[in-house]
């Protein structure tokens, strides 16, 4: 790609050196089916910079020990590295205290934790839980389980044709019966950025708490949980350049303190007798068992990498990629974009008249281009648009306009062969 286009892609005075960034991601150097990899499945998981991979290797080579327990040197060093990530995450999302940062396996576990602890304690018969029509299955199923158990009612904010939340209906759904609102910040299937601040304020006015699914947003948007005033916020490390199997649940300490425990075991206890167990303090109360130490240690360099580039610059580059790709795809005959919200982040979902998404996925893969095809774990959303699934290209900071050209060209050829 020429310097001119690179500057265009990042906006004036905000130039990121994309080629330099690409060199930090070893997997981007590989070939797939005889072609250089074009990785456009970033909404599923992001690739990892060498700093993250090195941290994993360094941990197992030099530090490996169980955390919090031992008095020996390795245990102390491993604990320090493991806990250092908590401070970096606290600052990354601007939580008030490090104790509000709970380590989880990922966003899914964070959402389940809130449903099964806060939900089980607070929901009563006839109470209402509000989710939206664009939730990932992980923010639907736990609420269905808990609502059924408690005879509570699950309400769903409908989606407009453009792929935005129908806020008018949301305000009508909201009432004194509403106990919790659990919504996605950025839709994994459509890219829509939801007005979560307005949702949180309105829910609080009715006395409800709010959980934000930040799996897609945490890499792309500035997250300030105090400014948002959300009660819970869940994210996954692997969608933000970090390792898989590590995630964060943020919760306001006042809520976390009074919530029952989730999993029982080691680490989460203060004292155990057969008559009664008392529980450890936050955040350890929710962190039973030996945690995923190495991956949390390696999550820190991922966040530091994002901080070093700067979210504003990342966002500017991704926005440029998204609008360039959107224009390119629109030129293609028979393409219908699914999700045309005013505010979008990094996801381009579309269908093609008379062509099955899976066929496109196979033919693009044959050219080394990785996209996602299918329902994106959001079947109710697909039903809303009367489609079985979409083709989804999702972008990250290391993608280039030249890659989008390759994608658009391969897409045109695939359609021609398939028609």
């Amino acid at each position, binding site marked *: 790609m020429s310097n001119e286009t690179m500057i265009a892609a990042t906006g004036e005075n905000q130039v990121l050196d994309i080629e330099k960034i690409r060199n930090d991601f070893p997997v981007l150097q590989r070939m797939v*089916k005889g072609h250089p990899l074009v990785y456009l499945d970033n909404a599923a998981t992001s690739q990892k910079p060498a700093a993250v991979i090195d941290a994993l290797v360094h941990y197992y080579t030099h530090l490996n020990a169980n955390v919090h327990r031992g008095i020996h040197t390795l245990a102390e060093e491993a604990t320090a590295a493991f806990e250092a990530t908590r401070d970096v995450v606290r600052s990354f999302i601007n939580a008030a205290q490090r104790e509000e940062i709970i380590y989880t396996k990922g966003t899914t576990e964070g959402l389940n934790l809130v449903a099964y602890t806060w939900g089980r304690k607070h929901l009563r018969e006839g109470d209402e839980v509000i989710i939206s029509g664009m939730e990932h299955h992980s923010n639907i199923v736990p609420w269905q389980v808990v609502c059924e158990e408690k005879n509570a009612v699950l309400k769903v904010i409908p989606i407009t044709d453009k792929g935005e939340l129908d806020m008018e209906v949301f305000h009508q759904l909201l009432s004194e019966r509403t106990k919790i609102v659990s919504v996605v910040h950025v839709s994994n299937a459509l890219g829509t950025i939801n007005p979560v601040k307005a949702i949180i304020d309105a829910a609080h006015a009715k006395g409800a708490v709010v959980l934000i699914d930040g799996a897609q947003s945490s890499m792309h948007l500035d997250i300030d949980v105090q400014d948002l005033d959300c009660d819970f916020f869940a994210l996954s490390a692997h969608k933000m350049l970090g390792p898989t199997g590590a995630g964060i649940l943020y919760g306001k300490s006042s809520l976390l303190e009074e919530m029952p425990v989730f999993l029982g075991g080691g680490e989460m206890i203060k004292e155990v007798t057969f008559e009664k167990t008392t529980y450890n303090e936050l955040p350890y109360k929710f962190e039973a068992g030996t945690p995923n130490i190495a991956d949390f240690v390696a999550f820190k360099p991922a966040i530091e990498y994002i901080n070093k580039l700067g979210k504003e610059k990342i966002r500017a580059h991704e926005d440029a990629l998204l609008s360039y790709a959107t224009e390119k795809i629109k030129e293609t005959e028979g393409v219908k974009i699914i999700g045309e919200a005013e505010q979008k982040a990094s996801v381009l979902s579309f269908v093609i008249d008379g062509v*099955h998404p*899976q*066929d496109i996925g*196979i033919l693009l*893969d*044959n050219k080394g281009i990785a996209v996602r*095809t299918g329902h994106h774990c959001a079947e109710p959303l697909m039903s809303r648009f009367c489609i079985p699934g979409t083709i989804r290209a999702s972008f990250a900071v290391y993608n280039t306009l030249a890659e989008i050209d390759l994608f658009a060209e391969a897409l045109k050829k695939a359609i021609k*062969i*398939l028609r």
Partner: protein
Amino acid sequence: MTTKTIQEIEAEIVDEFSLFDSWDDKYEYIIDLGKRLPPLDEVFKKEENKVKGCQSTVWLVADYQDGKIIYKAESDAIIVKGLISMLIRVLSGHTPDEILNADMDFINKIGMTSHLAQTRSNGLRAMVKQMKHYALAFKSLRFNA
């Protein structure tokens, strides 16, 4: 009705695929097969005829005529239709025993299993499994008759 054995047809397909230089050509051929696969009558497109384990929707039905099984199938995705077309070419018109004994190794030999992503190659296996289930069902019917 075919007089070739399953092994002979498998060998034919392996030969045909050896002529292709690239996967581009292989896919174009498979897509072409998919386009030419006769559509399945709408009455057969119901839940009970769906093959489980496929990402796209696949309907498969089988008929038993003069000791031989005739398969008909369709999918909403063209590449899958092309793959089905090859499976039908290999297995349709043979006896339940012949079908049950077929190793279907041509799928490996033409490189399909290594080229398709795991999830899609599972779908292909699911189709073969379903075809063999029909063979088993017709075989036990024959014994019970």
